[in-house]
């Protein structure tokens, strides 16, 4: 305890170097913990883009592909599934709800998704958050469209604006010949921001998808004179033939695996069902390298911070030779001199960690809403993760270890000097 109070007072005496050292360790610690939080946040955001969905069902193909186009609106389905099959599974006794998606069209680079009222009712993200409307309501008419918040913001659309949907999902404007200019949609609602891919799509009714393609044949626009004008189209006379995929929630979790097997072996149509969590993890593993690289960089930043501490302690030793001689004279052995310096360096590392933790929580508290708004990344403000604690412990331990370097030098000094340092 005597040594601890000596170490503390000695550090306090060199307030400027001490606080600079603590600050540099604190900053690098905050960076490390920040990266850790962003990692966790990214992983969580990623895993939470879709919640409470037990299965995603689509035409047989790659499971990653199904996840990508159904959840992230990336890539395209090679095949659709029939509306009858969809109805079959929707009415299955083990199924609580389904959300059908009909994909393939776009508007100025944003995907257009045909879906039903169930989408607005049942879709969940970040565990239990539900879609909400910033303005308007869900589509009531075949030619109503609801905008994700990014779409509305980027294209600066308001309720009542007319939107023309393009055939295909190529980025930018649809090919002029290929668009559905004859059947414009009216914005009926704008969703609140969810920080998930939902924000980057437009939503119309399944019948709307049918309607814009009603006079098309074999994927080509209607010939002159064969167009069917929008005025002749109503929800009742639109028959949905196909959808692309659907999300499914079972009544009990236990039924999930059973149902997955049933769907995968469905005789009527080649279909596949995937468990989103499993496939999300698979996907994360393939894109998780970037975070590892970031991690390595921050570890080097920590090392630099610790080296700074080493330098400041080491250079202070020469002016402290006198102090060491005094301590020797009043009966402190070399062991105590070593302990004193190791304590100082341990205290510096500890203080740096405390500063780092305070800093990162202050910062994430302040910047969390901004990061969520700008990057769609929800970074949780929470006590350090297990990994965070391990980092903190490791840095304090490293600080103590590094303390042995100046301690050894001081020990050599005291042996050489004895009681005889003249200043």
């Amino acid at each position, binding site marked *: 305890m005597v040594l601890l109070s000596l170490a503390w007072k000695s550090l306090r005496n060199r307030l400027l170097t001490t606080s600079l050292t603590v600050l540099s360790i604190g900053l690098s610690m905050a960076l490390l913990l920040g990266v850790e939080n962003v990692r966790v946040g990214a992983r969580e955001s990623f895993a939470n883009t879709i919640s409470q969905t037990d299965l995603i069902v689509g035409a047989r193909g790659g499971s990653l592909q199904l996840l990508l186009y159904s959840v992230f609106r990336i890539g395209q389905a090679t095949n659709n599934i029939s509306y009858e099959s969809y109805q079959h599974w929707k009415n299955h006794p083990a199924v609580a709800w389904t959300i059908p998606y009909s994909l393939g069209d776009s508007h100025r680079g944003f995907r257009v998704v045909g879906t039903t009222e169930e989408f607005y009712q049942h879709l969940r993200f970040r565990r239990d958050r539900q879609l909400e409307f910033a303005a308007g309501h869900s589509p009531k008419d075949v030619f109503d469209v609801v905008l994700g918040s990014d779409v509305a913001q980027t294209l600066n659309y308001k309720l009542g604006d007319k939107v023309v949907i393009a055939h295909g999902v190529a980025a930018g404007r649809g090919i002029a010949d290929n668009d559905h200019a004859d059947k414009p949609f009216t914005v009926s609602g704008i969703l609140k921001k969810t920080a998930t891919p939902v924000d980057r799509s437009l939503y119309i009714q399944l019948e709307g998808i049918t309607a814009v393609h009603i006079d098309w044949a074999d994927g080509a626009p209607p010939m002159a004179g064969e167009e069917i004008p929008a005025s002749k189209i109503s929800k009742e006379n639109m028959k949905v033939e196909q959808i692309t995929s659907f999300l499914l929630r079972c009544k009990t979790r236990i039924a999930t695996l059973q149902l997955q097997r049933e769907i995968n072996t469905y005789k009527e149509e080649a279909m596949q069902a995937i468990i989103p969590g499993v496939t999300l993890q698979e996907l994360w593993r393939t894109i998780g390298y970037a975070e590892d690289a970031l991690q390595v960089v921050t570890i080097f930043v920590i090392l630099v911070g610790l080296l700074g501490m080493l330098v400041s302690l080491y250079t202070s030793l020469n002016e402290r030779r006198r102090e060491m001689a005094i301590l020797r004279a009043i009966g402190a052995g*070399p062991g105590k001199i070593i302990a004193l310096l190791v304590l100082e360096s341990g205290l510096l590392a500890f203080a740096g960690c405390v500063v780092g933790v305070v800093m990162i929580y202050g910062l994430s508290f302040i910047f969390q809403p901004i990061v969520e708004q700008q990057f769609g990344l929800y970074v949780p403000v929470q006590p350090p993760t297990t990994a965070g604690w391990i980092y903190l412990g490791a840095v304090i331990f490293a600080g103590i270890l590094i303390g042995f370097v100046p301690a050894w030098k001081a020990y050599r000094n005291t042996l050489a000097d004895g009681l005889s340092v003249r200043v």
Partner: protein
Amino acid sequence: MSSPAVVLRDVRFRYRSGPEILDIPELTIARGERIFLFGPSGSGKTTLLGLLAGVLTGYTGTVEVLGQDMAKLRGSARDAFRGAHIGYIFQLFNLIPYLTVAENITLPGRLHPARGKQAGDVTAVAKRLGIEHLLERSVTQLSVGQQQRVAAARALLGGPELLIADEPTSSLDFDHRERFLDLLFENCALSNSTLLFVSHDRSLAAKFDRQLSLLDFNRAHRTEAAV
């Protein structure tokens, strides 16, 4: 208690491969004696003090301090022995700069429980040395004379059997020197401490029980001087 404060027999010492610094056939200091030790610089005064304090090892011969054969003590035991039984005053810069006066005075007692047990009242010692009003000050605010008295208070606290003072007055002016010495004598008498006072200022010598010239009993220097 009958053993002398210091006994040296056939002590030879050199730093590594350097020349012999000390070659002392015989030196005895009785308990309670006030010794004035003098000699020109480089005559081995500080080295001798290092041996007595148990900071320097690697000598041949016998060094006994307060009846304890220093060679028989291991490293940490020597440090503890010094902390518990020996007070030490340097010429200058005796104090740890980041501690207050009171903290400096009580530090040996806090480092060594044995010394701590004997440690008397800090204010009593401070009062005897006329520094009781400085106790809560930072040592950087003290004059040199005040610093030396704080150093004396630290060395005297707990009544060490042996007090070693390495030119403690050389940075003081004449008046302060006289007063400092009187205070030192007074307090050594109170705690019955043996005083080994090193100085090159012979004008002080008359106040001591015995004067020792290092040149007289250190043969190493004589042979070197002869060469």
